[in-house]
């Protein structure tokens, strides 16, 4: 008998139907699935046998998903994908601030779930970070600070490059406005989202085939931005 090498995902949700359907979806996508029906059980299951990733429902009956995240982040860096209901932008931002890696709004498509889960799992893998990241016809050379589009070098301003680099480093995952503003403009600019809007418009004009309908530099409604590679 060989050891199970499939990535291990823990599903924390109080609804048995959601757990069952997630198990079906995840197992057919090649994951090994564990289940916990409360936040407390989720925490102890993670402590007993650390999974490679956690899918966490925010609306748990015992301790709320955000509390689970805060307690978890005191001792673990395991990637967490949270499940929320729509219209709960504040909850989503609170979850990301509390240490979630990404979120998914219910009801979601299983394809979306797998893609998001793979993206958050990839962050945790200590694979050697390649200096050149490519998406579409764009190539970003992080070591040479160069950006090429269709092989032609594109001149970016300092702010534009900083924004692009941040999204590339977190590619596939959402980065909140606050996070971007803090990292690029400094903590005093956390609420100055219009700086960011303007830079994003410039960046899209330089990099997107259709800046008005961006394929890669995506907006996450009311939350932040996400670099989508496909």
């Amino acid at each position, binding site marked *: 008998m060989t050891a199970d090498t499939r990535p291990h995902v823990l599903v924390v949700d109080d609804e048995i139907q959601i757990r069952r359907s997630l198990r079906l979806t995840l197992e057919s996508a090649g994951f090994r699935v564990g289940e916990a029906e409360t936040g407390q059980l989720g925490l102890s299951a993670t402590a007993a046998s650390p999974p490679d990733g956690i899918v966490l429902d925010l609306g748990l009956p015992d301790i709320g998903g955000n509390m689970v995240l805060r307690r978890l982040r005191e001792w673990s860096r395991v990637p967490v994908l949270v499940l929320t209901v729509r*219209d709960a932008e*504040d909850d989503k931002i609170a979850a990301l601030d509390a240490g979630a890696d990404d979120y998914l709004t219910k*009801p979601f498509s299983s394809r979306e779930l797998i893609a998001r889960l793979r993206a958050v799992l990839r962050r945790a893998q200590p694979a050697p970070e390649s200096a050149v990241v490519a998406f579409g016809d764009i190539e970003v050379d992080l070591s040479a600070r160069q950006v090429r589009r269709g092989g032609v070098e594109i001149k970016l301003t300092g702010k534009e490059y900083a924004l692009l680099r941040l999204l590339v480093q977190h590619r596939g995952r959402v980065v909140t406005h606050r996070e971007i503003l803090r990292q690029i*403009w400094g903590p005093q600019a956390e609420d100055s*989202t*219009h700086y960011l809007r303007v830079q994003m418009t410039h960046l899209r004009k330089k990099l997107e085939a259709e800046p*008005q309908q961006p394929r890669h530099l995506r907006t996450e*409604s*009311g939350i932040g931005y996400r670099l989508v590679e496909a």
Partner: protein
Amino acid sequence: MSEPRQNEWREYALVLSVLIVLTAGGLLLPPHYSLSVGLLYLLALILLSLRVGRWPMLLGGLLSALTWEYFFLEPRFNFRIANVQETLLFAIYFVLALVVGQLSARIRSQARKEKMREESERLQRTLLDSVSHELRTPLAVITAGLENMESSPPAAQAGLVAEIRTATHRLNRLVGNLLDQTRLESGSLRPRVDWCDARDLVNAANDGVRDALTGHPLTVAVPEDLPPIRADFALTEHALANLLLNAALHTPAGTPIRISAGLSADGRQAFFTVADRGPGLPAPLRARLFQKFSRGETAGAGGLGLGLSIARGFLAAQGGEIIAGENPGGGATFSIYLPHSAPQPDPQE
């Protein structure tokens, strides 16, 4: 506000003119008819109380008592009262006149309450009927689709899956609308107004209703140099999506829809406009357009009639508004307006 006030003035005018006519008529009668004139006044007040409200009635009671005393009770043409019997008559008249007015006002307000209660019961019944219809239709499609799936050939399964998917979208939208309306009414809406890219808003709204827009060519016109605008992204996106959905559901298949954004001429408002080439907005529909549970007759695919009510509520919560209009050349337009001021330039640029 202005309508009831205007009605009230009309009621005062009616009371005054009735009293003037009666007084003038009474003066033509011989002096010993004074008691009959008093009873005539009373009769007029009782009849008036069927038409006019509490305050005009109070004025009528006071005025008629005074005119009766002045013109008809001995000694006539002054406010002196001759004897105990006259005093008694005057006092009884005065009390009767006031009581008649107040009693009838109370009866009328009770009748009004009863009518409102009946109307609200009727509304509730219709609402329950329509909610259960809207919930059961997609559920029926899903149930039947799943059952058929087990026995149908693989070729037919794609069609069933598509039907189930459409029904699920519809169910999802319905639940979303009911929750949105509840959030609006419970006052738990806390808008987070921030700088937004108008084009992002339009894209997000389009994505949300893509399946419903199928078959309607969509044009998007957002100026490239439009600065960021102040809005709650999620609320504005929903409002826009509801307008797009309406444009798709209430117009014939194949008719185009245009969505545009920009700043008003004075730069103090940002706007989004959804324009269609459908049947437009007939006057009777216009009056109840934004009322909840009010539906246009052209709504082919059902719905609860919550979309515009929610859109307006979401806009009002962030200091904006929605205005309906005619599209020159045919069709309807719905415009969202949000307060705008130019963003501070980035000091690090």
